[in-house]
């Protein structure tokens, strides 16, 4: 089911509404954190990141579904569509951050460290919006926590996403409070852990022969590299 909510002349899906709330939260919170760290950013940076995140999320879906060229641009700009890719959103946002940081002669690592907690909380909120809209893509399962969505009982993967992104945000906050070095790598740990765990329960993942989920292998590699880097920085900090 796709509940629609009327706000004046607008009719929005719950996913759209929650996504807007997540973007607003991300923007306000990130801006405050930039100011707290003594980095004053012009507003265009946030605009560029939000637009690039949107385009990245759509572009990923369109390329993945081999959309013909004659309808590519209208589909890319379709604001009322429901198909978005988390991976595409992340790549698009990261690219925009990199471009903006380079333009302002700033360090990308520092910027990513600053936006890590708001991003994870916004992702968590977005995952809840996706669940609320009933677009579940979990593997079939008839366990006690299964939900009836898209014609069958399934793993509520968006709720898992919400929980793990939330835990990731807590992890990054804890690392900040402990003044641990390598905030960028803590963010990577949070994202990679999420992918490693949640991809197990998704039905829409690419599989290797034998049923191994491709994205889990990449996530594990990323997780190991990030943990190793964090431990190395901790050893340096201890000296």
């Amino acid at each position, binding site marked *: 089911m796709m509940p629609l909510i009327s706000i004046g002349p607008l009719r929005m899906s719950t996913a759209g509404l929650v996504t807007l709330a997540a973007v607003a939260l991300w923007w306000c919170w990130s801006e405050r954190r930039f100011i707290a760290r003594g980095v004053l950013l012009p507003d265009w940076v946030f605009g560029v990141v939000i637009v690039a995140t949107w385009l990245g999320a759509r572009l990923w879906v369109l390329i993945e579904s081999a959309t*013909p060229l004659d309808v590519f641009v209208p589909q890319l700009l379709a604001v009322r569509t429901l198909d978005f890719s988390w991976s595409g959103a992340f790549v698009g946002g990261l690219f925009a951050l990199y471009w903006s940081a380079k333009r302002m002669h700033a360090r990308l690592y520092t910027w990513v460290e600053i936006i890590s907690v708001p991003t994870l909380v916004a992702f968590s909120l977005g995952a809840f919006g996706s669940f609320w809209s009933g677009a579940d893509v979990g593997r*079939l399962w008839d366990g006690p926590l299964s939900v009836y969505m898209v014609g069958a009982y399934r793993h509520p993967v968006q709720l898992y996403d919400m929980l793990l992104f939330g835990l990731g945000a807590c992890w990054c906050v804890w690392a900040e409070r402990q003044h641990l070095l390598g905030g960028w790598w803590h963010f990577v740990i949070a994202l990679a852990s999420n992918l*490693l765990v949640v991809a197990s329960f998704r039905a829409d993942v690419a*599989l290797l022969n034998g049923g191994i989920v491709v994205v889990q292998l990449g996530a*594990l590699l990323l*997780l190991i590299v990030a943990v*190793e880097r964090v431990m190395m920085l901790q050893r340096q900090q201890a000296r």
Partner: protein
Amino acid sequence: MNVSIHPRVFVMLIVGLIWIIVTRHDTATQPQFFDGNRIPDIQLMDVADAVVSTKPSQANPVVYTLWTTWCPACAANMPILNQLVPEMEARGIRMIAVNQGETLVQIQTHLTHTPIALEIWQDPQRQLGMALQVNDLPSTIFVDANGNIRLVYRGPITSALFRIMADELVHKTHR
């Protein structure tokens, strides 16, 4: 080159690999979303409130178009589909516009100023779109007479591509 790995990281690697293996998809027995590439059997209502079904009739290929009244791309695509209806009927292909997530009143209000030549079905719970995991509007689903899905086309479709797929459907049906 001396490459050393911390014991804790090594343990994490082993645990991660075990997790990946334990949670791998059982491709042999995992129930599929729908039976291979077959259209799922879903009961809906047409605009006269009669029960209709996506169950293959073994007689005609069917083309389903998922649409809504508020979708600008659907409005732009519908005249192309309207023009194709007589040609496709002559070739034995049914064209059905399956509305997604709207009420009968909304559909009928829309039809008063925008006629649609296709058969129109209601799908207020978006059962068909969700069963096929199709969220883009409009989307066109080509199903042969045996109920096999030949193509799920996301976005406004051109008449040229529609005709190519129609040829494919007729060919598969008569083979």
